[in-house]
C-alpha cells in the first residue's frame, strides 16, 4: 500500500514541479509568511525526535489532516486564478491530491484507525477566500512541497514499521 502511495506521490511531485513556473517561481523570492489567522496551513516542519517517535496512527492522521487542508487550499487557489491554463493545471493537480488523500484514508481504515470527522476545512478568511492570492499561493505550494517531501519519509518509516510487525 505504501509503495502505491509513494508512486502517486512521485507523480504529483512531478506535476507540481512542472508548475513552478510564474508567477510563483522568482529566484530567492520568499514573501513573508502570512499570519496564521489569515491563512492556516498545516506545517510539515517538526522536531526530529517528535517525528521519529510518532505512532503509526498519529503519523497517518497528521498526513491526512494536512492534505485535507492543502487540497481545499489548492482548490481555492484554482478558483481565484484568472489564467485559464493555470486553473486547469491546478484542478488537475487537485485530482492527484484527492487520490493521495483517498489512499491515506484507505490505509488508515485498513489498519483500523478511525478517520477524523469531515469538518469544514477552510484556509482563507471566514468566507474561505484567500486574502492575498499571490502570496498565499506561494506559501500553499511551498508547504505542499514540504509535505510531499515529508510524506515520502513518513511512508518509508511506516513501511518499515509495518513490515517489522
Amino acid at each position, binding site marked *: 500500500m505504501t509503495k502505491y502511495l509513494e508512486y502517486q506521490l512521485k507523480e504529483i511531485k512531478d506535476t507540481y514541479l512542472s508548475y513552478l513556473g510564474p508567477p510563483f517561481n522568482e529566484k530567492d523570492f520568499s514573501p513573508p509568511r502570512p499570519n496564521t489567522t489569515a491563512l492556516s496551513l498545516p*506545517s510539515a*516542519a517538526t522536531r526530529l525526535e517528535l517525528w*521519529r517517535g510518532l505512532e503509526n496512527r498519529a503519523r497517518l492522521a497528521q498526513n491526512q489532516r494536512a492534505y485535507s487542508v492543502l487540497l481545499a487550499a489548492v482548490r481555492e487557489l484554482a478558483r481565484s486564478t484568472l489564467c485559464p491554463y493555470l486553473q486547469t493545471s491546478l484542478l488537475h493537480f487537485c485530482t492527484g491530491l484527492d487520490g493521495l488523500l483517498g489512499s491515506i484514508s484507505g490505509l488508515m481504515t485498513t489498519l483500523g484507525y478511525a478517520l477524523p470527522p469531515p469538518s469544514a476545512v477552510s484556509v482563507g478568511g471566514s468566507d474561505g477566500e484567500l486574502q492575498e492570492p499571490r502570496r498565499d499561493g506561494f506559501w500553499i505550494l511551498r*508547504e505542499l512541497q514540504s509535505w510531499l*517531501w*515529508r510524506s515520502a519519509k513518513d511512508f518509508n518509516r511506516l513501511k518499515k514499521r509495518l513490515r517489522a510487525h
Partner: protein
Amino acid sequence: MANLVTSLCCVVLAAVVVAYAQKRSQLVGRIQYERMGSDVTMQCGSLDNDASVSWKVNGTDIKARHRLEGPRLLLTQVDLGHNGLYSCFQNPHGERRDTINLRIGTAPREPTVTCRSNTYPKGFYCSWHQQHSTYIPTEFEVDVHHNQRALEVQRDPVHKNRCHVRFPEVFSSFPYRVNVTAINDLGRASAAISFEESNIVKPDPPERVVATPIPNNVRRLEVTWNSPSTWPDVDNFPLKYFLRYRPLIRDQWQHVELSDSTSHTITDAYAGKEYIIQVAAKDTEIGTWSDWSVAVHATPWIEEPKQITSTTEADPVIETKPSPAPASVEPHLGEAPAGGANRPLSISSTLVLGVLLLLFM
C-alpha cells in the same frame, strides 16, 4: 606584626611585577595596524611636540623614505616592506621611549560562504574564506537565523573558518540565513547566504566499496559498499546510490541507479578485462549527489588455463595472479577443477578456448 610584613612584601612584589610587565610591553611593542598604500604616522610615547627623537626599525636604521616631525615618524604609501618593530630613542641621551610593531594590511572584503549538510537530519556546517589575504589577523563572526529565530552556532575546534549548526526542526519551509562578518583592525565586511534545508543536503561518498569476481562467471562482478559513516540515520533517511563502472580500456561509463541497496552485481562485464568502479550516494528525496567514492579495480573471474600433460589425468594447476590489483580487491582465479580426470583437455580445445577469449576482447 607578621601580617603587616607579609602585606608589605605582597605590595612590593606586585609593584615589581607591574613595572616588569610595563617594561616588557615596551620591548615587545604595541601593535599598530595600518592600511596598505596609506601614509602612516607613528608617535613616540607621550613626548612633547618639541622632543627630539631618533628611530630604528628591527634594530637598524630606517632605509625607507620617511620624515621626522618632533616625536613623530612619518612614512608614506606603506607596503608590506614597512612591517617591523620600530623603536624611538629620546635625544640626546638615547633612552628608549617606545616600541611599535607596525603591521601593514588591508580591510577585509566580503568572505565567500558555503553551507552543506552531510549529517542530515542532525545539522549542517558552513565554511568561509577570504578571496584575498588581509595580511593582518582577521576574525570572523557568524550568525544563523531561521524563521526569525537566532540559532546556536558552534565554532569548529580545528578549522578556524568553519562552524556547525544543529537543525532546529526537519521538513521546514522556511529558509536559513547565514551571515559571516570578517573583522580586523582596519575594517569589517559581511556576506550572507540564504538556503532551504533541502538544498544543502549532500552526503559523503559511500565507504568500503569492494568489488569481487564471482567464481565461474566470466562476465560478473559483485560490488558491495557501506553508507557513509557520517550519515546518522540511514533507516529513517535512506540513501539511494549511483554506481558507475567501465573497463580501464574504455572511456565511457555505464551507470546503474539503486534504491536502498548496498550491493549490486554487474552482469555485462567484458571477460578478462580490468574494471574501475565507483559509487555515489544521495538522500532519496532531497539534496544533491555525493562526490564519487574512491575507485576500486576488479577483474571478472577467468578460467584457469589448464597445463598440457601427456596423461589423461588432470594434474593440479599452478595458481597465477592476473594484473596487479589494489589492496581492497583480491581477484582470485578459479580453483583447480574438482574431480581429477573429469575434464581432460586436448590441445585443440585449448586453442578453441583461446580464440573464444580473444573474440570477447
